[in-house]
Protein backbone atom coordinates (compact mmCIF):
# COMPACT_ATOMS: atom_id res chain seq x y z
CA UNK A 1 0.00 0.00 0.00
CA UNK A 2 1.38 3.33 -0.96
CA UNK A 3 1.27 6.27 1.30
CA UNK A 4 -0.35 9.16 -0.32
CA UNK A 5 2.00 12.13 -0.14
CA UNK A 6 0.52 14.88 1.91
CA UNK A 7 -0.52 17.76 -0.27
CA UNK A 8 2.29 20.30 -0.31
CA UNK A 9 1.54 22.96 2.19
CA UNK A 10 0.65 26.12 0.44
CA UNK A 11 3.30 28.74 0.92
CA UNK A 12 1.88 31.52 2.98
CA UNK A 13 1.05 34.27 0.57
CA UNK A 14 -0.44 36.69 2.97
CA UNK A 15 2.78 38.75 2.81
CA UNK A 16 2.17 42.17 1.29
CA UNK A 17 3.52 42.31 -2.26
CA UNK A 18 6.45 44.50 -1.38
CA UNK A 19 7.81 41.96 1.11
CA UNK A 20 7.62 39.06 -1.36
CA UNK A 21 10.80 38.13 -3.22
CA UNK A 22 9.52 39.45 -6.52
CA UNK A 23 8.17 42.61 -4.98
CA UNK A 24 11.38 43.36 -3.15
CA UNK A 25 13.36 42.83 -6.32
CA UNK A 26 11.12 45.20 -8.26
CA UNK A 27 11.39 47.81 -5.53
CA UNK A 28 15.17 47.46 -5.60
CA UNK A 29 15.27 48.04 -9.35
CA UNK A 30 13.02 51.08 -9.09
CA UNK A 31 15.06 52.54 -6.24
CA UNK A 32 18.31 51.94 -8.14
CA UNK A 33 17.00 53.79 -11.18
CA UNK A 34 15.63 56.53 -8.94
CA UNK A 35 19.25 57.16 -7.93
CA UNK A 36 21.04 56.32 -11.21
CA UNK A 37 19.06 58.67 -13.42
CA UNK A 38 19.21 61.91 -11.37
CA UNK A 39 22.92 61.34 -10.74
CA UNK A 40 23.42 60.77 -14.47
CA UNK A 41 21.72 64.08 -15.19
CA UNK A 42 23.84 65.79 -12.55
CA UNK A 43 27.04 64.52 -14.18
CA UNK A 44 26.02 65.85 -17.57
CA UNK A 45 25.20 69.34 -16.24
CA UNK A 46 28.70 70.81 -16.78
CA UNK A 47 28.65 69.71 -20.44
CA UNK A 48 25.17 71.01 -20.86
CA UNK A 49 26.13 74.40 -19.43
CA UNK A 50 29.17 74.51 -21.71
CA UNK A 51 27.22 73.70 -24.85
CA UNK A 52 24.24 75.86 -23.99
CA UNK A 53 26.46 78.88 -23.23
CA UNK A 54 28.38 78.25 -26.45
CA UNK A 55 25.17 78.57 -28.45
CA UNK A 56 23.77 81.70 -26.84
CA UNK A 57 23.92 85.32 -27.90
CA UNK A 58 25.92 87.65 -25.71
CA UNK A 59 22.92 89.40 -24.10
CA UNK A 60 21.40 85.99 -23.45
CA UNK A 61 24.28 84.73 -21.33
CA UNK A 62 23.81 87.57 -18.87
CA UNK A 63 20.03 87.32 -18.94
CA UNK A 64 18.32 87.01 -15.57
CA UNK A 65 16.98 84.54 -14.63
CA UNK A 66 19.33 82.36 -16.70
CA UNK A 67 17.74 80.31 -19.44
CA UNK A 68 18.82 76.74 -20.05
CA UNK A 69 17.96 76.43 -23.74
CA UNK A 70 19.55 79.00 -26.02
CA UNK A 71 17.09 80.91 -28.18
CA UNK A 72 18.09 81.64 -30.90
CA UNK A 73 20.76 78.99 -31.36
CA UNK A 74 23.89 80.75 -32.58
CA UNK A 75 26.11 78.24 -34.41
CA UNK A 76 28.12 81.16 -35.66
CA UNK A 77 29.78 81.34 -32.20
CA UNK A 78 31.97 78.38 -33.15
CA UNK A 79 33.75 79.96 -36.14
CA UNK A 80 33.63 83.36 -34.44
CA UNK A 81 35.34 82.02 -31.35
CA UNK A 82 37.86 79.99 -33.29
CA UNK A 83 38.94 82.77 -35.66
CA UNK A 84 37.68 85.70 -33.61
CA UNK A 85 40.92 86.99 -32.21
CA UNK A 86 43.83 87.37 -34.52
CA UNK A 87 46.68 86.71 -32.18
CA UNK A 88 45.35 83.54 -30.59
CA UNK A 89 45.61 81.05 -33.41
CA UNK A 90 43.59 78.05 -32.29
CA UNK A 91 44.38 76.05 -35.41
CA UNK A 92 48.10 76.21 -34.66
CA UNK A 93 47.48 75.46 -30.96
CA UNK A 94 45.45 72.40 -31.93
CA UNK A 95 48.16 71.18 -34.23
CA UNK A 96 50.74 71.60 -31.45
CA UNK A 97 48.55 69.72 -28.99
CA UNK A 98 47.97 66.88 -31.48
CA UNK A 99 51.68 66.59 -32.24
CA UNK A 100 52.73 66.49 -28.57
CA UNK A 101 49.92 64.16 -27.54
CA UNK A 102 50.56 61.59 -30.30
CA UNK A 103 54.30 61.56 -29.63
CA UNK A 104 53.76 61.16 -25.90
CA UNK A 105 51.28 58.31 -26.26
CA UNK A 106 53.73 56.38 -28.43
CA UNK A 107 56.65 57.18 -26.14
CA UNK A 108 54.76 56.09 -23.05
CA UNK A 109 53.51 52.89 -24.64
CA UNK A 110 56.97 51.82 -25.80
CA UNK A 111 58.93 52.66 -22.66
CA UNK A 112 56.29 51.44 -20.21
CA UNK A 113 55.66 48.15 -22.05
CA UNK A 114 59.37 47.28 -21.88
CA UNK A 115 59.68 48.09 -18.18
CA UNK A 116 56.38 46.40 -17.30
CA UNK A 117 57.47 43.20 -19.05
CA UNK A 118 60.76 43.24 -17.19
CA UNK A 119 59.08 43.79 -13.82
CA UNK A 120 56.43 41.15 -14.40
CA UNK A 121 58.36 38.32 -16.10
CA UNK A 122 62.12 38.62 -15.85
CA UNK A 123 64.24 37.46 -12.94
CA UNK A 124 67.14 39.62 -11.89
CA UNK A 125 69.05 40.60 -8.80
CA UNK A 126 67.95 44.04 -7.64
CA UNK A 127 64.50 43.70 -9.17
CA UNK A 128 62.63 44.08 -5.88
CA UNK A 129 64.73 47.08 -4.96
CA UNK A 130 63.91 48.86 -8.22
CA UNK A 131 60.27 47.90 -7.99
CA UNK A 132 60.14 49.51 -4.55
CA UNK A 133 61.58 52.69 -6.03
CA UNK A 134 59.02 52.55 -8.82
CA UNK A 135 56.19 52.42 -6.27
CA UNK A 136 57.70 55.28 -4.27
CA UNK A 137 57.98 57.50 -7.35
CA UNK A 138 54.29 56.92 -8.08
CA UNK A 139 53.65 59.16 -5.09
CA UNK A 140 56.23 61.77 -5.95
CA UNK A 141 54.35 64.99 -6.67
CA UNK A 142 55.16 66.37 -10.12
CA UNK A 143 55.38 69.86 -8.74
CA UNK A 144 58.19 68.88 -6.38
CA UNK A 145 60.54 68.06 -9.25
CA UNK A 146 59.31 70.81 -11.49
CA UNK A 147 61.84 73.47 -10.57
CA UNK A 148 64.92 71.27 -11.05
CA UNK A 149 63.48 69.93 -14.29
CA UNK A 150 62.94 73.50 -15.37
CA UNK A 151 66.60 74.26 -14.64
CA UNK A 152 67.74 71.12 -16.42
CA UNK A 153 65.82 72.01 -19.57
CA UNK A 154 67.07 75.57 -19.42
CA UNK A 155 70.66 74.35 -19.24
CA UNK A 156 69.97 72.07 -22.22
CA UNK A 157 68.53 75.07 -24.06
CA UNK A 158 65.18 73.35 -24.46
CA UNK A 159 63.04 76.09 -22.96
CA UNK A 160 60.46 77.53 -25.29
CA UNK A 161 60.55 74.38 -27.44
CA UNK A 162 58.35 71.31 -27.35
CA UNK A 163 61.22 69.11 -26.19
CA UNK A 164 60.60 69.38 -22.40
CA UNK A 165 57.10 68.09 -23.08
CA UNK A 166 57.97 65.47 -25.71
CA UNK A 167 61.16 63.82 -24.43
CA UNK A 168 60.30 62.66 -20.86
CA UNK A 169 57.42 60.39 -21.97
CA UNK A 170 59.98 58.18 -23.72
CA UNK A 171 61.44 57.43 -20.29
CA UNK A 172 58.42 55.76 -18.78
CA UNK A 173 55.76 56.82 -16.31
CA UNK A 174 55.65 54.92 -12.98
CA UNK A 175 51.88 54.69 -12.76
CA UNK A 176 51.60 53.26 -16.29
CA UNK A 177 54.39 50.76 -15.69
CA UNK A 178 52.66 49.60 -12.53
CA UNK A 179 49.29 49.32 -14.25
CA UNK A 180 50.68 47.37 -17.16
CA UNK A 181 52.71 45.09 -14.91
CA UNK A 182 49.55 44.19 -12.99
CA UNK A 183 47.94 43.22 -16.26
CA UNK A 184 50.96 41.26 -17.51
CA UNK A 185 50.96 39.22 -14.29
CA UNK A 186 47.56 37.81 -15.24
CA UNK A 187 48.96 36.26 -18.45
CA UNK A 188 49.47 32.51 -17.81
CA UNK A 189 53.06 31.37 -17.43
CA UNK A 190 52.31 28.35 -19.68
CA UNK A 191 52.00 30.65 -22.69
CA UNK A 192 55.47 32.01 -22.00
CA UNK A 193 56.86 28.50 -21.57
CA UNK A 194 55.26 27.35 -24.81
CA UNK A 195 56.75 30.30 -26.66
CA UNK A 196 60.16 29.57 -25.13
CA UNK A 197 59.99 25.95 -26.28
CA UNK A 198 59.29 27.27 -29.76
CA UNK A 199 62.56 29.13 -29.44
CA UNK A 200 61.19 32.63 -28.94
CA UNK A 201 63.35 35.17 -27.16
CA UNK A 202 61.99 37.79 -24.78
CA UNK A 203 61.55 40.37 -27.49
CA UNK A 204 59.40 37.99 -29.51
CA UNK A 205 57.42 36.83 -26.47
CA UNK A 206 56.66 40.44 -25.65
CA UNK A 207 55.69 41.34 -29.21
CA UNK A 208 53.76 38.21 -30.16
CA UNK A 209 52.28 37.01 -26.86
CA UNK A 210 52.00 39.87 -24.38
CA UNK A 211 51.09 42.80 -26.58
CA UNK A 212 48.26 41.02 -28.45
CA UNK A 213 46.85 39.75 -25.14
CA UNK A 214 47.05 43.12 -23.41
CA UNK A 215 44.94 45.24 -25.71
CA UNK A 216 42.58 46.43 -22.94
CA UNK A 217 45.48 47.51 -20.74
CA UNK A 218 47.33 49.17 -23.62
CA UNK A 219 44.15 50.94 -24.70
CA UNK A 220 43.69 52.16 -21.14
CA UNK A 221 47.21 53.45 -21.09
CA UNK A 222 46.76 55.17 -24.43
CA UNK A 223 43.56 56.85 -23.25
CA UNK A 224 45.13 57.93 -19.97
CA UNK A 225 48.10 59.31 -21.85
CA UNK A 226 45.84 61.04 -24.34
CA UNK A 227 43.72 62.68 -21.66
CA UNK A 228 46.70 63.62 -19.50
CA UNK A 229 48.63 65.20 -22.33
CA UNK A 230 45.69 66.82 -24.06
CA UNK A 231 44.66 68.46 -20.77
CA UNK A 232 48.22 69.15 -19.58
CA UNK A 233 48.41 72.75 -18.48
CA UNK A 234 51.27 73.11 -16.02
CA UNK A 235 53.98 71.93 -18.44
CA UNK A 236 53.15 74.14 -21.43
CA UNK A 237 52.46 77.08 -19.13
CA UNK A 238 55.93 76.70 -17.68
CA UNK A 239 58.04 75.92 -20.72
CA UNK A 240 56.42 77.64 -23.67
CA UNK A 241 56.59 81.38 -24.34
CA UNK A 242 56.23 81.88 -28.09
CA UNK A 243 52.54 82.07 -29.11
CA UNK A 244 53.10 79.87 -32.19
CA UNK A 245 54.13 76.86 -30.12
CA UNK A 246 51.42 77.00 -27.42
CA UNK A 247 49.05 74.13 -26.77
CA UNK A 248 45.27 74.32 -26.54
CA UNK A 249 44.78 74.65 -22.75
CA UNK A 250 47.16 77.61 -22.60
CA UNK A 251 45.47 79.24 -25.60
CA UNK A 252 42.13 78.89 -23.87
CA UNK A 253 43.43 80.55 -20.73
CA UNK A 254 44.92 83.38 -22.77
CA UNK A 255 41.45 83.89 -24.15
CA UNK A 256 40.14 84.18 -20.61
CA UNK A 257 42.93 86.50 -19.55
CA UNK A 258 42.59 88.72 -22.58
CA UNK A 259 38.86 89.22 -22.56
CA UNK A 260 37.78 88.72 -18.98
CA UNK A 261 34.11 88.01 -18.71
CA UNK A 262 33.03 89.65 -21.90
CA UNK A 263 32.82 86.90 -24.50
CA UNK A 264 31.84 83.85 -22.51
CA UNK A 265 29.75 82.42 -25.31
CA UNK A 266 32.67 82.47 -27.75
CA UNK A 267 35.05 81.10 -25.15
CA UNK A 268 32.66 78.25 -24.34
CA UNK A 269 32.36 77.50 -28.05
CA UNK A 270 36.12 77.04 -28.26
CA UNK A 271 36.13 75.08 -24.98
CA UNK A 272 33.51 72.75 -26.43
CA UNK A 273 35.64 72.12 -29.49
CA UNK A 274 38.68 71.25 -27.34
CA UNK A 275 36.67 68.75 -25.30
CA UNK A 276 35.20 66.91 -28.31
CA UNK A 277 38.30 64.77 -29.09
CA UNK A 278 38.41 63.58 -25.47
CA UNK A 279 34.72 62.72 -25.56
CA UNK A 280 35.09 60.76 -28.79
CA UNK A 281 38.14 58.82 -27.62
CA UNK A 282 36.44 58.03 -24.34
CA UNK A 283 33.16 56.92 -25.89
CA UNK A 284 34.88 54.59 -28.35
CA UNK A 285 37.45 53.31 -25.92
CA UNK A 286 35.47 53.13 -22.71
CA UNK A 287 34.80 49.39 -22.83
CA UNK A 288 38.55 48.65 -22.83
CA UNK A 289 39.21 51.55 -20.56
CA UNK A 290 37.02 50.40 -17.71
CA UNK A 291 38.32 46.85 -17.95
CA UNK A 292 41.87 48.12 -17.93
CA UNK A 293 41.51 50.32 -14.84
CA UNK A 294 39.67 47.59 -13.00
CA UNK A 295 42.69 45.29 -13.25
CA UNK A 296 45.08 47.92 -11.94
CA UNK A 297 45.81 48.62 -8.33
CA UNK A 298 43.43 46.08 -6.97
CA UNK A 299 45.28 42.82 -7.26
CA UNK A 300 48.64 43.01 -5.66
Amino acid sequence: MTVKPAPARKIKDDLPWYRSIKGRHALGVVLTFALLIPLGILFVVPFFVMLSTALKTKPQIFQFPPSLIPDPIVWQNFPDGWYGYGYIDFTTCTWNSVKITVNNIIGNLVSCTLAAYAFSRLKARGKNFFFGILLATMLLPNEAVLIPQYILFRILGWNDTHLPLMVPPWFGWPFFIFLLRQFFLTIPEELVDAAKIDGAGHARILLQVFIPLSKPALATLAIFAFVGNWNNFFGPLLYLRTPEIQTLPVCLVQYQGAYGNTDWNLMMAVATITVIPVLLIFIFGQRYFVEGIATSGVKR
Partner: protein
Amino acid sequence: MLKRLVRPISPSARREERIFYLFILPWLIGLVVFNAGPILGILGLSFTDWKISFEGLNFIGLDNYRSLFADDTFWTSVGNTMYITVGRVVLGTIFALFLAILLNQKVPGIPFFRAVYYLPSVTAGVAVALVWIWIFNPQVGILNHALRTIGIKGPTWIHSTVWVKPSLIIMSIFTVGPNMIILLAGLQGIPKELYEAAEIDGAGTWQKFTGVTLPMLSPVLFFVIIISVAASFQNFTEIRVMTQGGPGESSNVLVWYLWENAFVYFQMGVASAVAWIIFLLLMALTGLQFRLGRRWVFYEV
Protein backbone atom coordinates in the same frame (compact mmCIF):
# COMPACT_ATOMS: atom_id res chain seq x y z
CA MET B 1 86.16 35.44 -0.51
CA LEU B 2 84.21 37.83 -2.68
CA LYS B 3 83.36 34.99 -5.02
CA ARG B 4 81.59 33.16 -2.24
CA LEU B 5 79.49 36.21 -1.42
CA VAL B 6 78.23 36.58 -4.95
CA ARG B 7 75.71 33.88 -5.62
CA PRO B 8 76.75 31.68 -8.53
CA ILE B 9 74.52 32.38 -11.46
CA SER B 10 74.01 30.39 -14.63
CA PRO B 11 74.73 31.91 -18.05
CA SER B 12 71.06 31.88 -19.02
CA ALA B 13 70.10 33.61 -15.78
CA ARG B 14 72.78 36.16 -16.44
CA ARG B 15 71.41 36.76 -19.91
CA GLU B 16 67.92 37.22 -18.45
CA GLU B 17 69.32 39.71 -15.98
CA ARG B 18 70.94 41.67 -18.77
CA ILE B 19 67.65 41.77 -20.67
CA PHE B 20 65.87 42.92 -17.49
CA TYR B 21 68.17 45.89 -17.10
CA LEU B 22 68.05 46.62 -20.82
CA PHE B 23 64.25 46.73 -20.70
CA ILE B 24 64.04 48.95 -17.64
CA LEU B 25 66.87 51.17 -18.89
CA PRO B 26 64.63 53.93 -20.29
CA TRP B 27 62.73 54.16 -17.02
CA LEU B 28 65.98 53.99 -15.04
CA ILE B 29 67.47 56.88 -17.02
CA GLY B 30 64.24 58.82 -16.57
CA LEU B 31 64.34 58.09 -12.85
CA VAL B 32 67.84 59.48 -12.46
CA VAL B 33 67.48 62.44 -14.81
CA PHE B 34 63.89 63.54 -14.17
CA ASN B 35 63.16 62.34 -10.63
CA ALA B 36 65.99 61.29 -8.32
CA GLY B 37 68.45 63.86 -9.63
CA PRO B 38 65.98 66.74 -9.41
CA ILE B 39 64.70 65.82 -5.96
CA LEU B 40 68.26 65.80 -4.62
CA GLY B 41 69.18 68.88 -6.59
CA ILE B 42 66.28 70.77 -5.17
CA LEU B 43 67.28 69.77 -1.66
CA GLY B 44 70.61 71.45 -2.25
CA LEU B 45 69.02 74.52 -3.81
CA SER B 46 66.64 74.93 -0.90
CA PHE B 47 69.67 75.91 1.20
CA THR B 48 70.61 78.76 -1.16
CA ASP B 49 69.36 82.27 -1.89
CA TRP B 50 69.11 81.46 -5.59
CA LYS B 51 66.93 83.81 -7.63
CA ILE B 52 66.54 83.18 -11.36
CA SER B 53 70.16 83.34 -12.50
CA PHE B 54 72.90 81.30 -10.92
CA GLU B 55 75.15 84.31 -10.39
CA GLY B 56 75.55 85.40 -6.80
CA LEU B 57 74.29 82.10 -5.46
CA ASN B 58 74.99 81.84 -1.75
CA PHE B 59 74.66 79.05 0.71
CA ILE B 60 72.35 80.34 3.43
CA GLY B 61 71.70 77.19 5.44
CA LEU B 62 68.22 76.82 6.78
CA ASP B 63 67.25 80.46 6.22
CA ASN B 64 64.67 79.63 3.55
CA TYR B 65 62.96 77.19 5.85
CA ARG B 66 63.13 79.65 8.73
CA SER B 67 61.57 82.45 6.73
CA LEU B 68 58.90 80.06 5.43
CA PHE B 69 57.94 79.01 8.91
CA ALA B 70 57.71 82.67 9.87
CA ASP B 71 55.52 83.50 6.87
CA ASP B 72 51.78 83.61 7.58
CA THR B 73 50.95 83.01 3.92
CA PHE B 74 52.87 79.76 4.03
CA TRP B 75 50.84 78.51 6.98
CA THR B 76 47.64 79.67 5.30
CA SER B 77 48.56 77.61 2.25
CA VAL B 78 49.34 74.57 4.42
CA GLY B 79 45.96 74.96 6.13
CA ASN B 80 44.13 75.42 2.82
CA THR B 81 45.86 72.38 1.34
CA MET B 82 44.81 70.28 4.33
CA TYR B 83 41.24 71.62 4.27
CA ILE B 84 40.81 70.85 0.58
CA THR B 85 42.59 67.50 0.81
CA VAL B 86 40.51 66.26 3.74
CA GLY B 87 37.31 67.47 2.07
CA ARG B 88 38.16 65.97 -1.29
CA VAL B 89 39.37 62.66 0.05
CA VAL B 90 36.60 62.07 2.59
CA LEU B 91 33.67 63.23 0.46
CA GLY B 92 35.20 61.92 -2.76
CA THR B 93 35.82 58.44 -1.36
CA ILE B 94 32.35 58.16 0.16
CA PHE B 95 30.76 59.35 -3.06
CA ALA B 96 32.91 57.04 -5.20
CA LEU B 97 31.92 54.11 -2.99
CA PHE B 98 28.27 55.09 -3.23
CA LEU B 99 28.45 55.23 -7.02
CA ALA B 100 30.34 51.94 -7.16
CA ILE B 101 27.65 50.21 -5.08
CA LEU B 102 24.99 51.69 -7.32
CA LEU B 103 26.79 50.47 -10.44
CA ASN B 104 27.16 47.03 -8.89
CA GLN B 105 23.38 46.50 -8.89
CA LYS B 106 21.92 44.07 -11.36
CA VAL B 107 19.80 46.35 -13.48
CA PRO B 108 19.92 46.99 -17.23
CA GLY B 109 21.86 49.94 -18.64
CA ILE B 110 24.76 49.88 -16.17
CA PRO B 111 27.52 50.33 -18.84
CA PHE B 112 25.75 53.48 -20.01
CA PHE B 113 25.61 54.99 -16.52
CA ARG B 114 29.16 53.92 -15.82
CA ALA B 115 30.29 55.89 -18.89
CA VAL B 116 28.24 58.94 -17.94
CA TYR B 117 29.65 59.00 -14.39
CA TYR B 118 33.17 58.61 -15.69
CA LEU B 119 32.90 61.30 -18.34
CA PRO B 120 33.70 64.41 -16.21
CA SER B 121 36.90 62.71 -15.05
CA VAL B 122 38.38 62.54 -18.54
CA THR B 123 37.38 66.04 -19.50
CA ALA B 124 38.84 67.69 -16.39
CA GLY B 125 41.10 70.48 -17.53
CA VAL B 126 41.12 74.11 -18.49
CA ALA B 127 37.94 73.93 -20.60
CA VAL B 128 35.88 72.39 -17.82
CA ALA B 129 37.39 74.65 -15.16
CA LEU B 130 36.16 77.58 -17.24
CA VAL B 131 32.68 76.07 -17.31
CA TRP B 132 32.72 75.79 -13.54
CA ILE B 133 33.49 79.52 -13.19
CA TRP B 134 30.27 80.03 -15.06
CA ILE B 135 28.33 77.44 -13.02
CA PHE B 136 29.49 79.12 -9.80
CA ASN B 137 28.58 82.61 -11.05
CA PRO B 138 26.54 84.11 -8.20
CA GLN B 139 24.02 85.92 -10.43
CA VAL B 140 23.58 84.04 -13.68
CA GLY B 141 25.17 80.71 -12.71
CA ILE B 142 23.07 77.59 -12.91
CA LEU B 143 23.91 76.48 -9.35
CA ASN B 144 22.48 79.53 -7.64
CA HIS B 145 19.61 79.51 -10.09
CA ALA B 146 18.76 75.97 -9.03
CA LEU B 147 19.04 76.95 -5.36
CA ARG B 148 16.83 79.98 -5.96
CA THR B 149 14.05 77.84 -7.41
CA ILE B 150 13.93 75.89 -4.15
CA GLY B 151 14.02 79.10 -2.15
CA ILE B 152 17.65 79.20 -1.03
CA LYS B 153 19.80 82.24 -1.60
CA GLY B 154 23.11 80.71 -2.71
CA PRO B 155 26.49 82.04 -1.57
CA THR B 156 28.93 83.74 -3.94
CA TRP B 157 30.94 80.48 -4.21
CA ILE B 158 34.43 81.04 -5.66
CA HIS B 159 34.16 84.78 -4.98
CA SER B 160 33.71 84.20 -1.27
CA THR B 161 36.58 83.62 1.15
CA VAL B 162 34.38 81.18 3.08
CA TRP B 163 32.91 79.25 0.16
CA VAL B 164 35.81 79.04 -2.26
CA LYS B 165 37.26 75.88 -0.69
CA PRO B 166 33.90 74.08 -0.48
CA SER B 167 33.37 75.11 -4.12
CA LEU B 168 36.61 73.43 -5.18
CA ILE B 169 35.66 70.33 -3.18
CA ILE B 170 32.20 70.18 -4.77
CA MET B 171 33.79 70.43 -8.19
CA SER B 172 36.22 67.61 -7.43
CA ILE B 173 33.29 65.32 -6.58
CA PHE B 174 32.61 65.20 -10.32
CA THR B 175 35.98 63.63 -11.04
CA VAL B 176 35.82 60.53 -8.83
CA GLY B 177 35.56 58.29 -11.92
CA PRO B 178 38.83 56.33 -11.55
CA ASN B 179 38.20 55.68 -7.85
CA MET B 180 34.67 54.61 -8.63
CA ILE B 181 35.88 52.04 -11.16
CA ILE B 182 38.60 50.69 -8.88
CA LEU B 183 36.07 50.31 -6.04
CA LEU B 184 33.58 48.70 -8.41
CA ALA B 185 36.18 46.12 -9.39
CA GLY B 186 36.85 45.57 -5.69
CA LEU B 187 33.15 45.02 -4.99
CA GLN B 188 32.92 42.51 -7.81
CA GLY B 189 35.85 40.63 -6.35
CA ILE B 190 34.08 39.90 -3.04
CA PRO B 191 33.00 36.21 -3.04
CA LYS B 192 29.21 35.75 -3.06
CA GLU B 193 29.46 32.96 -0.49
CA LEU B 194 30.32 35.51 2.18
CA TYR B 195 27.03 37.32 1.62
CA GLU B 196 25.13 34.04 1.57
CA ALA B 197 26.74 32.99 4.84
CA ALA B 198 25.88 36.35 6.38
CA GLU B 199 22.27 35.99 5.22
CA ILE B 200 22.00 32.56 6.81
CA ASP B 201 23.18 34.16 10.03
CA GLY B 202 20.33 36.59 9.66
CA ALA B 203 22.31 39.68 8.71
CA GLY B 204 20.36 42.57 7.21
CA THR B 205 21.51 44.87 4.41
CA TRP B 206 23.35 47.25 6.72
CA GLN B 207 25.04 44.44 8.65
CA LYS B 208 26.14 42.86 5.39
CA PHE B 209 27.62 46.20 4.36
CA THR B 210 29.56 46.78 7.58
CA GLY B 211 30.37 43.14 8.24
CA VAL B 212 31.26 41.89 4.76
CA THR B 213 31.57 44.68 2.19
CA LEU B 214 33.69 47.17 4.14
CA PRO B 215 36.25 44.71 5.56
CA MET B 216 36.61 42.91 2.23
CA LEU B 217 36.93 46.21 0.39
CA SER B 218 39.32 47.83 2.87
CA PRO B 219 42.57 47.12 0.95
CA VAL B 220 41.05 48.73 -2.16
CA LEU B 221 39.70 51.65 -0.14
CA PHE B 222 43.15 52.10 1.34
CA PHE B 223 44.73 52.21 -2.12
CA VAL B 224 42.09 54.71 -3.30
CA ILE B 225 42.66 56.99 -0.31
CA ILE B 226 46.46 57.02 -0.74
CA ILE B 227 46.13 57.89 -4.43
CA SER B 228 43.48 60.54 -3.73
CA VAL B 229 45.61 62.35 -1.16
CA ALA B 230 48.51 62.48 -3.60
CA ALA B 231 46.22 63.71 -6.39
CA SER B 232 44.66 66.38 -4.20
CA PHE B 233 48.09 67.79 -3.33
CA GLN B 234 48.85 68.33 -7.01
CA ASN B 235 45.75 70.20 -7.94
CA PHE B 236 46.97 73.24 -9.88
CA THR B 237 44.85 73.76 -12.99
CA GLU B 238 41.62 74.66 -11.20
CA ILE B 239 43.39 77.08 -8.85
CA ARG B 240 45.22 78.79 -11.71
CA VAL B 241 42.17 79.06 -13.96
CA MET B 242 39.42 79.69 -11.42
CA THR B 243 40.72 81.47 -8.33
CA GLN B 244 44.45 82.30 -8.64
CA GLY B 245 44.71 81.51 -4.95
CA GLY B 246 42.01 84.01 -4.04
CA PRO B 247 39.90 85.72 -3.00
CA GLY B 248 42.60 87.04 -0.72
CA GLU B 249 44.57 83.96 0.19
CA SER B 250 41.59 81.74 0.81
CA SER B 251 42.42 79.23 -1.92
CA ASN B 252 46.18 79.61 -1.81
CA VAL B 253 47.35 75.99 -1.65
CA LEU B 254 50.95 74.77 -1.41
CA VAL B 255 51.26 74.13 -5.13
CA TRP B 256 50.07 77.64 -5.88
CA TYR B 257 52.41 79.06 -3.24
CA LEU B 258 55.25 77.16 -4.90
CA TRP B 259 54.29 78.44 -8.34
CA GLU B 260 54.09 82.07 -7.20
CA ASN B 261 57.42 81.93 -5.42
CA ALA B 262 59.20 80.22 -8.29
CA PHE B 263 57.76 81.75 -11.41
CA VAL B 264 56.19 85.02 -10.31
CA TYR B 265 58.63 86.27 -7.64
CA PHE B 266 61.55 84.14 -8.90
CA GLN B 267 62.44 83.17 -5.33
CA MET B 268 63.79 79.85 -6.55
CA GLY B 269 65.56 78.96 -3.30
CA VAL B 270 62.39 79.50 -1.30
CA ALA B 271 60.34 77.64 -3.88
CA SER B 272 62.76 74.71 -3.69
CA ALA B 273 62.21 74.58 0.06
CA VAL B 274 58.43 74.58 -0.54
CA ALA B 275 58.83 71.73 -3.03
CA TRP B 276 60.70 69.71 -0.44
CA ILE B 277 58.09 70.44 2.19
CA ILE B 278 55.35 69.25 -0.18
CA PHE B 279 57.33 66.08 -0.82
CA LEU B 280 58.00 65.41 2.90
CA LEU B 281 54.42 66.24 3.89
CA LEU B 282 53.06 63.79 1.35
CA MET B 283 55.51 61.09 2.44
CA ALA B 284 54.58 61.71 6.10
CA LEU B 285 50.87 61.54 5.33
CA THR B 286 51.36 58.32 3.38
CA GLY B 287 53.41 56.86 6.22
CA LEU B 288 50.76 57.87 8.71
CA GLN B 289 48.09 56.24 6.60
CA PHE B 290 50.07 53.01 6.48
CA ARG B 291 50.29 53.06 10.28
CA LEU B 292 46.59 53.79 10.70
CA GLY B 293 45.88 51.31 7.94
CA ARG B 294 47.14 48.47 10.10
CA ARG B 295 44.15 49.08 12.36
CA TRP B 296 41.42 49.09 9.78
CA VAL B 297 42.68 47.43 6.62
CA PHE B 298 41.78 43.78 6.53
CA TYR B 299 43.93 41.47 4.45
CA GLU B 300 42.76 37.98 3.69
CA VAL B 301 44.96 35.26 5.11
